[in-house]
């Protein structure tokens, strides 16, 4: 989910650490993110192993490797929990999700998720109403640059159902990868349903 993962994944590769392996997600029906969302990908994806930063409601997939594209799901994040695991004493913190959040609050929660983890440039490009999980939610398009200086784009669709946050997010290199994966992201988001 986070850009920090890119660094973590990279260092895991370099260190040859005994991390959990990537697993294939075949085309068909898949229950994701704590089995809280059902989606129907039309092609094969790679499930990214979880890191210690990830919360139990999160799951991430990639097509070409997480440095180039990542699709993340958050399935039913409860009120009071943050998008990532963080320590109480961390200087910079992602605000915990609240069921009472305004669209403005949700957007800045996503933005801080990037900024608190070292993204210096984050531009909100579009915020508009969107349908997600048969409910009215928000679509957020954004652009950002991490310390690796590679310009990236992101799209996030999210909605609050029963005081819980459901979210799908795609981020990828602005040159080629984001745009090439976007149509399938759109198709998977449209196929998403509660089990």
């Amino acid at each position, binding site marked *: 989910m986070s850009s920090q993962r890119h660094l973590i994944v990279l260092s895991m590769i370099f260190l040859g650490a005994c991390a959990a392996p990537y697993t294939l997600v075949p085309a068909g029906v898949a229950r994701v993110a704590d089995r809280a969302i059902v989606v129907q990908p039309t092609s094969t994806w790679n499930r990214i192993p979880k890191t210690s930063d990830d919360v139990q409601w999160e799951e991430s997939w990639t097509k070409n490797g997480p440095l180039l594209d990542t699709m993340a799901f958050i399935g039913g994040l409860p009120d009071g929990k943050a998008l990532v695991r963080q320590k*109480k*004493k*961390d*200087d*910079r*913190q*992602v*605000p*915990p999700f*609240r069921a*009472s959040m*305004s*669209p*403005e*609050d949700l*957007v*800045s929660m996503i*933005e*801080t998720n990037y*900024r*608190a983890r070292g993204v*210096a*440039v*984050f531009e*909100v*490009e*579009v*915020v*508009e*109403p969107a349908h997600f999980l048969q409910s009215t939610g*928000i679509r957020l398009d954004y652009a950002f*640059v991490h310390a690796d*200086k590679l*310009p990236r784009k992101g799209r996030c669709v999210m909605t609050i159902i029963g005081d819980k946050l459901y979210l799908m997010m795609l981020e990828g290199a602005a040159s080629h990868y984001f745009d090439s994966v976007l149509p399938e992201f759109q198709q998977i988001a449209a196929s998403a349903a509660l089990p």
Partner: protein
Amino acid sequence: MESDLILRAPDFHSYVVTVVERLLGASAQDLRIYLVRDPSFNASMAPNGMMLVHTGLLARVHDEAQLASVLGHEAGHYLRKHSVENWRNLRRKSAAVAFIGAGANAVAGYAALQGYDGQSWIDLANAINNAIVLSFFRFSRQQESEADAFGIGLLARAGYNTTSAAEVWQQLIAERKASAAARDKKYRDQSVAAFSTHPPSEVRLRDLMDTAINLNKDVVVSSGAETGSARWRRASQPYFASFIEEQIRLNDPGAGFYLIERHAQERWSGVLRYYQGEIYRLRGESGDSELAAEAYAAAVEHEDAPPEAWRAHGYSLMKLNRREDGRSALMRYLELQPDAPDAAMVRFSLSQ
């Protein structure tokens, strides 16, 4: 192609160049200055004359003399050829480390052949090598202190207020303490360690203050000694909100409040009130919604309030069940910013 991390601000960049020229005179032409979008308090100098100035530094200085004090320090590294010295020092010391290690192993091997325990030779070599490695860090700390003193000399010659360098450190230490306190933890100076490349911040602050006081005794400070605060305000004003935004969006509330209140010592503005509200909104503790709402309400009273202050004001009023007042504020936001990236979302909120 220029990096996306470079701040596109030709007028402000030219202003920073004039400050460096005032400090260095003819030597300034050897330097290339880049303003980098990075929220950390930092500036750095490469041996080829490339100086990087972070927006996180620009967010934390309050006048031209404070900016000059940091630029003078960095220029000090360059003019005193510290990078080259460092490299030579590192090369010499790493050669010595390798030589001592290899020598000890040879002696230990010979001793072992003769039936003696060679380990003590290796232990001795390790001890010497550790001392050499530590001396590298001490060397780097000495260079920092030297650049500090050199920087203050430049400030004095250019007629800037020489206590500015100490002020910058004082502010930074106070900010780090406020940040730690807000997260219920002890302030720890990250530069107090044998492996630190920089002197401890408190020591540095004391040295800077002493140097400034001594210089003020020696140099007749008459018409010079200025802070250049009006020039700084004029030049930084168009970018000030973006520098502050970069800090507040990190959601480090202690540091954020310190920064806002320190800037507000000059005067409260719409920008400062808006970002004060943003700190409360991001922190989201009990009672923060009300405090954020108060700050936004104060922000929109100022002429310089950014359009986003009206949006925040609107949503905060709606949360407090003042729906009609909230709707008017959101409509004001759309009037001011009809093409805002979130205009469609705000219109949707109004239709609910």
